[in-house]
């Protein structure tokens, strides 16, 4: 064990300067629209916190780019109480992207049954909602609504972060 070496390297080499807040801080996209209380998606969900387990069941990775974009400081989805998690046990629902391929069907259903009640299913992107023209592929099983009770659809190929945030806020109600 290089005890001393570690301690000194920790002390000396980590830069001391404080990083300035991000350049485009002022450009943060405020999504002004407060969620409409009449759009009552899954009233049994506790408002204020929505933790989702993302499942890519056959996406082209385009929707994932926009979802990760939502978590950038520019949009900061987490500030609306919405976050992603590793374990479906910790989550309040699934965020499904892409068509459901034959090879992912069981995994998706497994993930759904691993989420504790009350739970939502969000189908994100045209592929998840209606297969977006890929239905006739021999490896494609179905669109998400054919397999799971979808509570919220976010259309787009891929939907923009603004759109995603607006839609999800109707669930988290923050």
């Amino acid at each position: 064990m290089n005890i001393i070496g570690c301690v000194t390297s920790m002390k000396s080499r980590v830069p001391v300067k404080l990083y300035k807040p991000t350049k485009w801080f002022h450009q943060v996209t405020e999504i002004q629209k407060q969620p409409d209380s009449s759009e009552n998606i899954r009233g049994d969900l506790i408002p204020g916190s929505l933790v989702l387990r993302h499942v890519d069941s056959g996406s082209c990775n385009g929707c994932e780019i926009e979802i990760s974009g939502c978590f950038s400081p520019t949009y900061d989805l987490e500030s609306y109480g919405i976050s992603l998690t590793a374990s479906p046990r910790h989550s309040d629902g699934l965020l499904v992207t892409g068509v459901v391929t034959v090879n992912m069907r069981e995994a998706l259903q497994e993930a759904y049954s691993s989420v504790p009640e009350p739970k939502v299913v969000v189908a994100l992107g045209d592929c998840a909602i209606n297969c977006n023209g890929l239905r006739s592929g021999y490896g494609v099983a179905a669109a998400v609504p054919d397999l799971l009770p979808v509570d919220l659809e976010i259309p787009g190929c891929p939907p923009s972060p603004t759109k995603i945030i607006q839609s999800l806020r109707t669930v988290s109600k923050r």
Partner: protein
Amino acid sequence: MITWTFSPTSDVVIPREIIHIPAEALHESISTQLASGSRLALACAIDDYDSIRLVYVFANPCTNRRTEIEVSLTEHDAKIGSLAALSFPASRFEREFHDLFGIKILNHPLPRRLVRHGHWPASWYPMRHDSGNPIFLKGNLEFPFIPVKGPGIYEIPVGPIHAGLIEPGHFRFYAVGETIIKLKIRLWYLHKGLEKLFEGNDVFYGLTLSEKISGDTSVGHSLAYALAVEEALGITVDEDIAMARAMLLELERLYNHVSDIGSLANDVGFSLANAQALVLREKLLRINEQITGHRLLRGAISIGGVHTLRQINRDEMAQIINTFSEIYSMINENAIVRERFTGTATLRKDDAILLDVLGPTARASGISSDARIGNPFINLPFQTAAQTAGDVMARFQIRANEFENSAQLLQANGQVFGITASSSSSKNAHCKSPTSARGIGIVEGWRGTITTRVEIDSSNRLSRVKIVDPSWFNWPAIPIAMSETIVPDFPLANKSFNLSYSGNDL
């Protein structure tokens, strides 16, 4: 043997040849090609109803020559001797032949399934013309891995549903504590049957499909497809169109590389840098939208043309370069981050050569693989980043270098955008010889070299499209690079390769 040349633009000449040989001569012919310095860029099988044709495409990085070696097999008893001893990628293409076409591979050392998942019906070969509708089996029908034996070994199954925002794939670690003894990867969870979806459709529909191959590489894949179709139909494009296309590729490289760099920092818990990288990526995505009308650059490439809305502002690019260099130094100067990156998941050069890896992965291991230089569709003075260490640090540095190079190129050539142009020859592209009904497109996407091969039938419909994403070549590199890496470093190592699942699985 058929030999000709094709000129996509006025100053690029691509020598082309097709060699038709009997099955017995395949081994020798392939080894001749490999000996001449060409690399096996693509291999595909084509079901011609009465026979099955295998096509091996070689691309020579010195002469830009593309060679197709063709073998015909009988429909009912299709079999071919394995080329595993000659080329590792060939041995994987062969497994794909078997899984999708039912071609028997003789003397393959490890004829395991590659594409087929356990629940596929046994004699269903989906790419055959008479495959029909399968009834998928139910229950636990996993296909086995080679067991790793020894005391105290346990298995970590990870996936197909990964933690985080990652595409599906299954990783099986055989480990003792934190030491990885062996890593096995099973993919094709995203297998949609995309190649068959092309068949029977017109070339314009194919273009929209090719944008969905991998959402983060829509320019790369659609351009490779467009180049292949253009060659098949004999379309040549003007210099400025080719230039705009090249710059679109660089634009795609920018937003993906900055995202990778942020993710690498995030995987070692340095979220500050990731936050800044995400902001920069958002900025770039907005520029993408302004230039092409789509945040992921879709719709910018058309057959024989290009579609862009506005030019790139030099100051805008300068600002991006500045911000990037701040993010880069923030990561690069952090002692803990450097320590985490250095020496992690090393891919040695000799392994990299055997695997024939592509793109930044290859360049980080000391291989100068770059289709922009070796197999270009336009001649530009590209600078290729080079590293030799082959570890996470090297792949990080390659991405950072490439980002800067690309951003400078865009800064210098941003004025090529703002055009919506189409080649004049694309209008009268209906007269074609039997040989020109096939085309190959090679493009250096941000992950590496994408190769697409199309065949167009006499009724002007796509009869076979084969796409090879660089990830297809690079995936086997991960288990090899992981051999001396501990379990908790795997996500970082995997992210440093950042391979496409969607582009691989199709």
